[in-house]
């Protein structure tokens, strides 16, 4: 009686296939998520970021300078995007994150080379993410050794050789000891918020629909906007608890420097939390059941964590991946958190990262409200 029988097993297998086929979204996700992972892990991720935007501050215009700069570009790591002689400007560029490096060619560079004094070129790095700057900094030694060798001909030949005619001095700003946690822990704040906020709210309306309570809610005079905002508000409080927990851990467990204004960070967190909640609510109106809602949240979470610059250097990714990353609120929030905590950025510097998040909130809220129907039509 209770022995294993193949036909009973087969009955269950067939039933599962029938149900799988009925739930198109789940079926699509089972195909879509591996494809997404392949694309992201296979193409987008690169732990050896090259072509890092760099500013050049020139105090010497000699031929060696030109050769050195050309060699740095040829290494593939440094793209000179700005040439200036203003210290204030390079300072600003690095705080904004517009450039990863500032290369300072000192006064009398050419003269010092000729004298065999191995003049030091100061390379300032935005080292908030050690992984982004590490390979480029490592490449500097090799560049130093041979960079201007082809200019050293004739009597200057004697200047060739190890350790090279020029040297580099690296100033790693904001995270001088290259402590990975200083970058990861503030970033984690954004990741945790994305993960929990999107999933929780994605379930919010789907659950009402699945349990049949939606019909009742629709029959009452409550307006869509009231439902959406009413569902979002409690989780904003939860989000703030999360932010506080992570900040406390960052301070006391990981000793992350907190240079900027915590008040500003709290204020901006509100926008970021809202962005994730709005996204979740929108998924909630799209999904037919709770499983689909969770899958959609996962579909959003995966690129968020991989393409935002949290796990892998943003600038290491191909251009298309950077575009995708730019559309995600986490990318901008990471820059804001790291900027405020590590760089001490103020409102002025974080502004360029705020409006994309605001735009994201507006768009996803609009889709959500539009999708939420007041009738069952």
């Amino acid at each position: 009686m209770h022995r294993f029988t193949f036909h009973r097993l087969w009955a269950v297998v067939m039933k599962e296939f029938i149900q799988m086929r009925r739930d198109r979204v789940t079926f699509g996700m089972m195909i879509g998520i591996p494809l997404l992972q392949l694309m992201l892990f296979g193409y987008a991720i690169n732990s050896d970021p090259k072509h890092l935007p760099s500013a050049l501050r020139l105090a010497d215009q000699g031929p060696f300078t030109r050769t050195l700069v050309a060699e740095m570009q040829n290494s593939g790591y440094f793209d000179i995007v700005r040439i200036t002689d203003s210290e204030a400007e390079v300072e600003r560029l690095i705080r904004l994150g517009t450039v990863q490096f500032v290369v300072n060619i000192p006064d009398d560079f050419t003269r010092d080379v000729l004298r065999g004094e191995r003049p030091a070129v100061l390379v300032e790095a935005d080292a908030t993410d050690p992984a982004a700057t590490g390979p480029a900094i490592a490449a500097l030694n090799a560049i130093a050794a041979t960079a201007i060798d082809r200019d050293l001909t004739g009597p200057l030949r004697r200047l060739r050789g190890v350790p090279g005619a020029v040297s580099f001095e690296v100033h790693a700003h904001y995270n001088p000891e290259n402590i990975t946690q200083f970058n990861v822990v503030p970033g984690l704040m954004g990741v945790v918020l994305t993960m929990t906020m999107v999933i929780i709210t994605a379930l919010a309306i789907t659950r009402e629909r699945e349990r049949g309570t939606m019909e009742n809610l629709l029959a009452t005079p409550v307006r869509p906007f009231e439902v959406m905002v009413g569902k979002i508000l409690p989780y904003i409080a939860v989000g703030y608890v999360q932010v506080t927990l992570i900040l406390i851990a960052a301070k006391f467990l990981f000793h992350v420097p907190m240079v900027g204004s915590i008040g500003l960070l709290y204020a901006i967190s509100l926008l970021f939390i809202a962005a994730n909640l709005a996204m979740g609510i929108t998924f909630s109106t799209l999904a037919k059941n709770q499983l689909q809602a969770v899958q959609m949240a996962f579909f959003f979470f995966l690129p968020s964590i991989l393409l935002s610059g949290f796990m892998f250097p943003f600038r290491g990714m191909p251009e298309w991946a950077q575009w995708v990353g730019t559309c995600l609120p986490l990318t901008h929030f990471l820059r804001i958190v790291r900027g405020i905590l590590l760089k001490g950025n103020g409102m002025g510097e974080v502004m360029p990262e705020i409006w994309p998040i605001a735009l994201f909130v507006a768009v996803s809220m609009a889709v959500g409200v539009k999708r939420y129907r007041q009738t069952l039509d």
Partner: protein
Amino acid sequence: MKTDFVIDVAGVTKRFGAKTVVNGIDLQVERGEIFGFLGPNGSGKTTFIRMLCGLLTPDGGSGTCLGHDILTEQPLIKREVGYMTQRFSYYEDMSIRENLDFIARIYAVPDREEAVQRSLEQLRLQNRSHQLAGELSGGWKQRLALAACLIHKPLLLLLDEPTAGVDPKARRGFWDEIHRLSTEGITVLVTTHYMDEAERCHRIACLAYGNLLVRGTVDEVVSSAGLATWSVAGPDLGTLVGALRGQAGVEQVVPFGNTIHVSGSDAASLEATLARLCAPGQEFTRTVSGLEDVFISLMDRAKDNFG
């Protein structure tokens, strides 16, 4: 032009894709009336109710519910209607009191706490007020649902199969409550599958395939159907049931315990058939057609017309 019709609609139609689910229904329900909707599953009862309370927009037709236009004033209707869904649709992870309190807040009921308390007492739920709705049995869930849709003192109650899965005693209690509400001037539109419940309504209407077939008091509906019914008693009725089916004049043969009921709209033809087929010892007597016989007969005829 003020009428005392709480529901006054004409030609109400709803299509889902190519399928017409509700087909041009006209209906007037007076204040304080208990109006029953009978119809098989899928006959359009739920869809019609959803259109009355603003959950669905009709594709055709017009009319008013509580004096508000069903096409344009849905938000106003929602405020004054209590709608009890077919499936229990309150929050199972919230207690009875929490559910009532939530609904009372949504409707901005004045003196909310008092209203919740009153509603708990009225439906004798006060001893269970802290129990989670999900833990309640069918009868108690139904009681909670009724309490919740009454909390904002609606003028019209729309009850969609409110007693499905509820035991007879609880059902009786429920109907007593409905009649009490009716005497207070609340209008009730209720759908049901139970004939005994239909008989407790002031007026009923039968739906099939989205069409309203007949309406009136139970007696009017029964007599208008023109159905003749005989009751047969005696031995070996099982064989007779098989023999009668498909014979001239026989439309329904229904075993009723130790008797069978045979009905048809052509009384003379049916009587002749019975005389021919009844064995010695089997006695047939004319009886009053029941609402159920009439209902089944209506459905069969509707199938020929619309199905």
